[in-house]
């Protein structure tokens, strides 16, 4: 993975010392909260319901085992023994003390981590396919381009005070696991007419109170033009994006109001001026960054491991875990192992310090020291020999990380909700816990098959409820928690915004409502048909009738 050079290290260390000074000035009373608040937010430090919350960036979801051990240490020493992996591939600590935050940031800097770009109206931490560099369906490793974007966007002086926050996602694969069409800018690596790798560019996607699917802005962009084009896109947004209304300030509103064609024209005009300027990427620089992502020293193995096949045959539990949690690797004899952070009844995305240490150890032993964070709030060991999967599975079981439920109804995305978040209007986690408990039976869970259920505790949609096949939005209705259901959302290459099925449900009725939807699906599906395929074939009617009766 990418290793900091002197410039990166200097920037991060300087920022830590700057923040240390700011914290001491706040504590001494020299700075008011009004003056201090934007400064702490620029360092990822929020104030939530019960305490401060520190959001640490995991650039494009990539962690080394050393970094994972550091996160475990921070959870243990400075927090309450756990961390929460988020839907933006980051990690949040829920109980840091203000006085200790500079020390936490100094420790993070030792392993080339920080909390920059995790708050504020800047270009946020870029996200990517969690299987980058490993996926069988990948054209090229997107991390190269994420790192180039990181270097360009960090402390970008022109884009430090944008109308609103700005999120970029990159995928290099055919299957979109990075949800690029619901980002401010989505980038897909594609092959040009002459076979060279370039980019398809999307803009104006987003969730929140006005969910929108991105529009395609450019069919093909040459690799060397990436930064100049992004700069032009940001400039047009920075100039014309609305600043009069916070809720209309995202780029999706601009693209929607003026139209994709007008936005594209403005970008292309701006780009014409800067295309061949300082931002044109020299081939030499691309190859320097590319080297940082040289694949690990994979062994030459048979495509099929007989030992692995035999283990699956002998051990039903292992076979089930492989079926749901293991994905195809681009290198013969290897596999991608997903580690679910969603045990039945558990808190989605939470991991204890002990679990983080264990994952770091397994990464060293079986995955070249590499770990990934998925936006679905799970972890990934990207490069595991098929022959090692059985031992990995046993080891994961010893730390309760072996839930065989990736991509199933148990794999619920949920924001922290009102249990932690000061913006939330209802709790999310208890609903996720009750649903995963209701569907804990593995026979039933795997019979239901592939489905996504996402829960947000407020309209800001951190739980991505709009793009869940089933979405749940928690709202406050006269002081009571109430839950609206949407059906038909998708976050992948067929991205779609779910539609509200009908009136919401009280907290004691929401789980039954979900079960009714699932039972309806099971009763009307055709052989091998997934939930979303059934829904798309039949529409909402059978589900609506089951929930509300035939009026």
């Amino acid at each position, binding site marked *: 993975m990418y290793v900091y050079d002197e410039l990166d290290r200097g920037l991060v260390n300087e920022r830590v010392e700057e923040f240390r000074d700011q914290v001491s000035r706040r504590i001494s009373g020299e700075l008011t909260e009004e003056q201090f608040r934007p400064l702490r937010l620029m360092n990822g430090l929020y104030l939530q319901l019960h*305490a*401060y919350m520190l959001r640490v960036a995991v650039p494009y979801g990539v962690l080394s085992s050393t970094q994972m051990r550091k996160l475990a240490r921070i959870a243990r020493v400075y927090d309450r023994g756990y961390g929460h992996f988020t839907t933006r591939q980051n990690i949040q600590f829920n109980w840091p003390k203000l006085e200790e935050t500079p020390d936490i940031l100094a420790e993070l800097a030792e392993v080339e981590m920080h909390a920059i770009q995790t708050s504020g109206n800047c270009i946020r931490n870029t996200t990517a396919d969690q299987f980058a560099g490993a996926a069988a369906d990948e054209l090229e490793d997107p991390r190269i381009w994420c790192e180039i974007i990181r270097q360009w966007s960090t402390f970008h002086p022109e884009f430090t005070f944008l109308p609103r926050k700005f999120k970029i996602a990159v995928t290099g694969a055919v299957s979109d696991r990075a949800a690029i069409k619901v980002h401010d800018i989505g980038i897909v690596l594609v092959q040009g007419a002459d076979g060279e790798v370039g980019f398809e560019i999307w803009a104006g996607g987003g969730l929140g109170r006005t969910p929108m699917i991105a529009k395609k802005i450019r069919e093909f962009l040459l690799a060397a033009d990436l930064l100049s084009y992004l700069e032009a896109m940001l400039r047009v947004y920075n100039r014309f994006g609305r600043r009069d209304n916070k809720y209309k300030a995202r780029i999706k509103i601009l693209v929607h109001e003026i139209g994709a064609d007008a936005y594209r024209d403005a970008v292309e005009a701006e780009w014409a001026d800067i295309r061949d300027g300082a931002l044109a990427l020299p081939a030499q620089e691309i190859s320097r960054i590319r080297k940082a992502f040289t694949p690990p020293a994979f062994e030459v193995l048979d495509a099929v491991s007989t030992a692995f096949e035999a283990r699956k045959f002998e051990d039903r539990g292992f076979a089930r875990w492989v079926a749901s949690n293991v994905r195809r690797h681009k290198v013969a004899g290897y596999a991608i192992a997903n580690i679910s952070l969603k045990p039945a009844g558990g808190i989605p995305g939470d991991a204890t310090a002990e679990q983080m240490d264990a994952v770091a150890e397994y990464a060293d032993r079986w995955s070249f020291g590499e770990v990934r964070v998925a936006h679905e709030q799970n972890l990934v060991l990207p490069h595991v020999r098929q022959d090692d999967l059985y031992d990995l599975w046993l080891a994961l079981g010893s730390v309760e990380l072996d839930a065989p439920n990736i991509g199933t109804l148990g794999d619920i995305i949920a924001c922290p909700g009102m249990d932690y978040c000061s913006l939330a209007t209802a*709790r999310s986690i*208890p609903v996720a816990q009750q649903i995963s408990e209701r569907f804990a039976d593995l026979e039933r869970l795997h019979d239901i098959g592939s489905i996504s259920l996402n829960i947000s505790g407020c309209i800001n949609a951190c739980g991505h409820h709009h793009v869940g096949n089933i979405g749940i939005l928690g709202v406050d209705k006269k002081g009571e928690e109430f839950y609206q259901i949407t059906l038909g959302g998708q976050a992948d290459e067929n991205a779609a915004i779910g539609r509200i099925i009908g009136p919401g449900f009280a907290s004691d009725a929401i789980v039954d409502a979900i079960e009714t939807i699932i039972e309806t699906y099971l009763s009307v599906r055709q052989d091998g048909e997934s939930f979303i395929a059934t829904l798309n074939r039949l529409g909402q009617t059978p589900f609506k009738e089951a929930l509300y009766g035939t009026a």
Partner: protein
Amino acid sequence: MALEIITANRLGDGLVIFLTTDGWSARIGDAVVSESRDETAALLARAEADAGLVVGPYEITVERQADGSLHPVKYRETLRTRGPSVRTDLGYQAA
């Protein structure tokens, strides 16, 4: 008028606190209770004068139970007096 008290988060560790007759307390039972708009305004002014110790003071509505204890009307505020409902080992409820 409904009963009101003043709450905030402590500057140093961010934990939830309540304005008392002579300072701040982590226990809602220690809070000084306002029964009028003027009283609430005066308490808020006092709280804001402590800007070097606390962050974001605001008033919340509470009810006094038969046993004399104070309970927030809004569930959000109840959560703040206790801690996360999904981690009863954390926050004030754990003590």
